[in-house]
């Protein structure tokens, strides 16, 4: 990265990648999300439990998260690896393990130990194709990503689009 990030961080420096390779592929094929998305949020969906004890005080605890994000709109681009994965899910009505993938969140404001790498978190996820079709603006396949855990910290090489966990370094 050429410039040091100071102050308010631009949205583009929080990068979201999804592995577009088929489940079982030997090497992942990470594709960056964000084209045509004016907004993209990972909703944490915390499991919040509030109890009131015998003293009348309320106690709130969070015992987990069910993170989920929505990629809408997603315009299909011929030849794009992610489009082909999504189209296959829609065409063949894939379920269960065929929907597995991984997502990587890359902190582009936080450089890793080697040049061109950045702090990143990888997590398993499930692809849910919501619908396909759309209006005359183009063929759309909006989809949801359900983060299912196995979150690992590491670094992401932005040039080769490869993730290396801290335990592998």
């Amino acid at each position: 990265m050429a410039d040091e990030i100071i102050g308010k961080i631009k949205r583009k420096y929080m990068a979201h990648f999804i592995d577009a390779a088929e489940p079982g592929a030997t090497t992942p094929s990470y594709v960056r999300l964000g084209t045509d998305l004016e907004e993209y949020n990972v909703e944490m969906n915390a499991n919040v439990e509030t109890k009131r004890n015998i003293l009348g005080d309320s106690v709130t605890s969070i015992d987990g998260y069910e993170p989920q994000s929505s990629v809408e709109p997603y315009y299909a681009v011929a030849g794009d690896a992610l489009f082909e994965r999504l189209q296959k899910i829609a065409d063949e009505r894939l379920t269960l393990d065929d929907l597995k993938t991984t997502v990587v969140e890359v902190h582009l404001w936080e450089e890793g130990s080697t040049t061109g790498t950045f702090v990143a978190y990888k997590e398993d996820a499930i692809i849910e194709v919501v619908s396909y079709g759309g209006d005359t603006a183009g063929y759309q396949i909006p989809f949801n990503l359900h983060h299912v855990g196995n979150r690992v910290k590491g670094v992401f090489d932005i040039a080769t689009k490869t993730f290396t966990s801290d335990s592998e370094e």
Partner: protein
Amino acid sequence: MNIIELVKQILTDCPLVSDLSGEINIDYTENNPVSFGLYPIGDQLIKEDILGNQERQHNFVLYAVFQSFNDYDRLANSTFLLNLAYYLEHAATGQEIEVTIDNKTVSGKLTKLSSANGMLYGYQDGTLSGPVTYQIQIYAEYHIESEGF
């Protein structure tokens, strides 16, 4: 080539225009028919995605000075505007442009051309039988790539 140069080029290459006149002026029209003047009237950001890519729109007014002796002429003039509107709808084919912001040049492409309000705009000599000016507003939508990341 920036968006203004590109739209001027597309209009110059349009057979409807080139059959009548060899050139498109910028911010200028001659008094005698046939003359075309392309007037850029501003640029606006339509939307920006989270990667920093922008969809922008540049607006133009094309003024055309035609003759207007009789209804036949005026029908031909209005038909010209109608045919030009149809032509523009299919003229955007991803032509590349360059955008320079803060001395950084980024690439972009034309995504859509559309038009509106094609109509008689005014008389030259205070009479409908002299040269008259028609206008058509042209909207050029284009996409520019985020620099870096």
